């Protein structure tokens, strides 16, 4: 189908975009790369009265490393993330994850800010932000707010952004030494939305996890930071320890059911992902036995 009629305004600055959003509230929608918004509009799932196009705001584009943080402008495209040596050096989880975001033609337009503001629970980047302890920077009429990624995502397509605010950037802590990461997703076709996925960031201390953040996606209404991961921190991992953590994970998750998978299939896949993640990061094939996907 085609999008229904709307008015169009090309924002000339962040201040100008905020004025437009203040004037039109939730009747307006912000357009960046359009790779989530345009399908929703073409399918008539949403019909905004006004589109505020922020695509020309160069100030929202780009990746910078300052001190211990990596700042990524909201308009930075997926392909820019994928090719960035700074991201590869300081947040390699993101480099790996972006290759799974849709297809090349989509990655050439889609932006990180758009993906996070859209907050599809099956998409990769929100989970990465949670795993990487990112801070989301938003600006509104009352100034700037900084929101932890875990508090930013509130539900299916729901975030802490209010209609008069604009997502400006995300900030990630530069990965500490001894870090390790794992990313995997199950999808019907490479680049499709995941049926279940895991973005994981760890700090290793010899053969033990000093820290382990497991952010699952497509298994809840938002990215889920698994509490069960705490059972794997600062302990020597045995098959029994992993099996207990896996059971705790299954208990903790409350996945949705849709035409792609039942809730129990998603729960099972999440357990497989946890097991593969732990065995891969520790280099322990003995921990990956007995469970297949």
């Amino acid at each position, binding site marked *: *189908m*085609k*999008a*229904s*009629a*709307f*008015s*169009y*305004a*090309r924002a000339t600055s962040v201040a100008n975009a905020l004025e437009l959003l203040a004037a039109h509230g939730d009747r307006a929608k912000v*357009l960046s790369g*359009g*790779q989530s918004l*345009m*399908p929703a509009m*073409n*399918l008539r799932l949403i019909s905004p009265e*006004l*589109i505020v*196009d922020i*695509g020309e705001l160069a100030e929202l584009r780009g990746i910078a490393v300052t001190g211990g943080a990596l700042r990524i402008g909201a308009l930075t495209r997926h*392909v820019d993330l994928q090719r960035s040596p700074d991201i590869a050096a300081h947040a390699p989880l993101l480099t790996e994850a972006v290759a799974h975001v*849709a*297809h*090349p*033609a*989509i990655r*050439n*337009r889609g932006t990180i800010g758009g993906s996070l503001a859209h907050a599809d629970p099956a998409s990769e980047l929100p989970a990465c932000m949670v795993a990487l302890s990112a801070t989301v920077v938003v600006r509104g009429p009352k100034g700037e707010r900084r929101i932890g990624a875990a508090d930013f995502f509130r539900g299916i397509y729901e975030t802490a952004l209010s209609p008069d605010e604009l997502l400006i950037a995300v900030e990630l802590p530069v990965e500490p030494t001894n870090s390790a990461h794992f990313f995997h997703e199950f999808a019907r*076709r*490479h*680049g499709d939305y995941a049926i279940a996925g895991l973005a994981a960031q760890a700090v290793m201390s010899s053969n033990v996890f000093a820290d382990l953040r497991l952010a699952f996606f497509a298994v809840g209404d938002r990215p889920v930071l698994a509490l069960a991961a705490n059972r794997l921190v600062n302990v020597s991992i045995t098959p029994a320890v992993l099996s207990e953590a896996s059971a705790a994970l299954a208990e903790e998750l409350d996945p949705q059911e849709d035409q792609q998978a039942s809730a129990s299939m998603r729960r099972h896949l999440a357990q497989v992902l946890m097991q593969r993640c732990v065995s891969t990061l520790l280099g322990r094939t003995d921990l990956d036995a007995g469970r297949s996907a």
Partner: protein
Amino acid sequence: MTAPVPISLEVNGERVNEHVLPRLNLADFLREQLQLTGTHVGCEHGVCGACTVRVNGDIVRSCLMLAVQAHGASVQTIEGLSDSGEVADLQAAFRDRNALQCGYCTPGMLMAAQDLLNQQTEPDREQIREHLSGNYCRCTGYQAIVDAVETTARLRAGRQP
């Protein structure tokens, strides 16, 4: 503001000045206002890849881009790539290998395949499949398309197919 908006862009090397409604997507603009019907419209929500065109050198879904967003941009369609001879060898390989049947997906396939060949001189079959993963073909089963792209890559690298 729902009135037509003036846009100025370059399409296949020619300057185009038009007025468009904000809701008009780039695919429909190319097809209906410029009569460049080589760009096909399949799913209209970014899944099938039939509408793939180049904008400022990058392949994009023209159904997921508004014509107003192309203001100031340089757009190349399959007509441009075909007329310039840029993909002549790729088209010949598709024909030789029967890599098309109904032909609906072919313009998008050629755009995506050429994009890959510009980035990598000798991609392996897995990389070809990955790069074409966003383009649906409902006739060929993909095998022949991957063959044609692989053959073209080898010939361009000066090797035997």
